[in-house]
């Protein structure tokens, strides 16, 4: 089982050093058995999150002076999920993520990350978490590669012997291998974003927390990130992706949480959330009034007759029954459409149409 191996070794594309993972693993394993850690390892219980949630918060609240940035949210990210963390700008997503990672302390409430309480167990939990918080940030006058080496050097759990290989693999995984020796300040925003993702992939991770990972990326880059996240998730890594771009999340996520003005206004599987708004049926016909009558008889709600179409909310009615009923009633059906609400509709219905940043 290779669910925890994420650190860029499992690239099916040409990796810089394909032999590395097994070597490294065996070295780690043998070193642990010689140092006596093996005893500890064998008695160490399975991480509690394997059965539960990768992230669980209870009543998580953050107040900055007068402003309540996050107000009592109960975030639940099941292990193995790809969790889309949605919300308009200023809705409290990044503040929440900072609390998850122990960068800021909550005013009230608790955080459990991979079964460890945060911030007390942050050092244990975070070595299994790759994160990208509020945009890339690196030393401008160092190369991308040197920046990754710096982060790796800071990680006391990283094996220096495999550092070079892991840095190369991470750069390769985000397509930066060729530009690795350029100074960070010469990078475009997209390259910077990729470097930040590479930093999150330096070590094997159980959880990735990616705050706006496709910000500033070109369409190809966006697609690549989506593919990358998908392949990491299929390896068993839990992923939390925050975004205000719905299209990004819609294709990717198994679970969704929607933030609005500091509240978690909705949370659940993507399918559950879609179910929240009713499916609409539209019958194109020359006799919209007759079609509307059939709809009402079947029990559709909000039925409206337009110039050459009738529209109603399906509710529990199966779409095929509506078509059959129309035909039986002698309504000439020219066209028939069933509109499942897009995530955007769900999103807008939860957070409002307004363009204003929530204050």
């Amino acid at each position: 089982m290779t669910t925890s191996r994420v650190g860029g070794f499992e690239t099916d594309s040409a990796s810089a050093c394909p032999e590395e993972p097994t070597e490294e693993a065996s070295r780690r394993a043998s070193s642990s058995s010689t140092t006596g850690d093996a005893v500890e390892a064998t008695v160490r219980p399975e991480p509690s999150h394997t059965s539960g949630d990768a992230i669980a918060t209870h009543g998580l609240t953050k107040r900055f002076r007068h402003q309540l940035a996050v107000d009592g949210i109960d975030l639940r990210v099941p292990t193995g999920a790809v969790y889309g963390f949605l919300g308009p700008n200023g809705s409290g997503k990044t503040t929440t993520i900072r609390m998850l990672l122990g960068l800021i302390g909550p005013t009230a409430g608790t955080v459990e990350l991979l079964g460890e309480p945060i911030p007390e167990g942050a050092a244990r939990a975070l070595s299994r978490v790759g994160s990208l918080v509020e945009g890339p940030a690196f030393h401008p006058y160092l190369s991308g590669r040197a920046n990754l080496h710096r982060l790796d050097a800071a990680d006391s759990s990283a094996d220096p012997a495999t550092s070079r290989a892991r840095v190369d693999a991470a750069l390769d995984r985000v397509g930066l291998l060729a530009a690795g020796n350029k100074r960070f300040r010469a990078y475009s925003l997209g390259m910077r974003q990729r470097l930040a993702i590479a930093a999150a992939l330096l070590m094997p991770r159980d959880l990735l927390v990616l705050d706006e990972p496709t910000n500033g990326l070109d369409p190809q880059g966006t697609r690549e990130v989506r593919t990358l996240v998908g392949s990491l998730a299929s390896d068993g890594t839990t992923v939390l992706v925050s975004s205000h771009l719905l299209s990004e999340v819609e294709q990717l996520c198994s679970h969704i949480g929607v933030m609005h003005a500091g509240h978690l206004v909705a949370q659940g599987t993507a399918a559950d959330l879609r179910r929240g708004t009713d499916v609409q049926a539209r019958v194109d016909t020359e006799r919209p009034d007759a079609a509307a009558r059939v709809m009402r008889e079947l029990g559709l709600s909000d039925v409206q007759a337009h110039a050459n179409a009738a529209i109603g909310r399906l509710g529990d009615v199966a779409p095929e029954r509506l078509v059959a009923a129309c035909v039986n009633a002698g309504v000439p059906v020219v066209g028939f459409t069933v509109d499942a609400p897009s995530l955007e509709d769900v999103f807008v219905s939860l957070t409002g149409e307004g363009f204003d940043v929530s204050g």
Partner: protein
Amino acid sequence: MSVADVVDQRGALGRPRVSTRFLRSELRLIFGRRRNIAGLGVLAAVPILIAVAIKVDASSPNPDQGGPTFFTSITQNGLFVALAALSIELGLFLPIAVSAISADSVAGEANTGTLRYLLTVPVRRTRLLGVKYAAIVIFSFAATFVVTVTGIVMGLLLFGGGSLTLLSGSQAAFGEGLLRVVAATAYLSCGIASLGAVGLFVSTLTEQPLGATIALVLLSTASFIADTIPQISWLHPYLITHYWTAFADLFRDPIAWGQMQTGLYVAAVYAVVFWLAAWARFAGKDVTS
């Protein structure tokens, strides 16, 4: 790989190894930065300037230097170039150098945003402050020794070595003289490093490294100024810079250790108190940069 392998690996991963890797990375960051190399170049320029100026105009060395007067002895022994340069630079250049580095240590990382990535690596905050201060101490010694080594090299080139006449008039062999110069440099480095601890603390208060640098330079300058006002002589022994010039006592016969012992004690107290203050400030601080 089996599940057991994964767990085994975790066992090894979970325990931090004692390693100097992070410190070395920190030092590469400091000594690899062009700004800092240029700063060290400026520090080195002073003894060169002194040596050349005195060589060119050997007839009229300035006798009215404040602090330890090593200038008059330079023509007799090149080692005194290093001491003269140290006594000049301890007033401003060395404090500026350590201020820039220490103020940058946390505030600089916060300013570029790299602090949040370091903390989520994860680096424990106490460890971060420990490594940062270790790097500041190493830099303090490096900066001071750059002055000394340049001074010794220039002095020996232009004025030669040989036995040196101590401030009390007696003679010391060249080897012993060299040893005393090295000891003086190490002593002054400790004082500079204690200022670095104050800088580390100031650095945890802000996200603006330049502001922290200026604050620290102001502080050290104010300390020097206060040290010259006799009406507040009760304050003098507590000033961070008060004992810095005591390294001149190494060039008496016999060596007067008293002032330097107190100086080391004051430096240690400053270092410990301000490192702890930095820790108290930073350990639970919200990192929003």
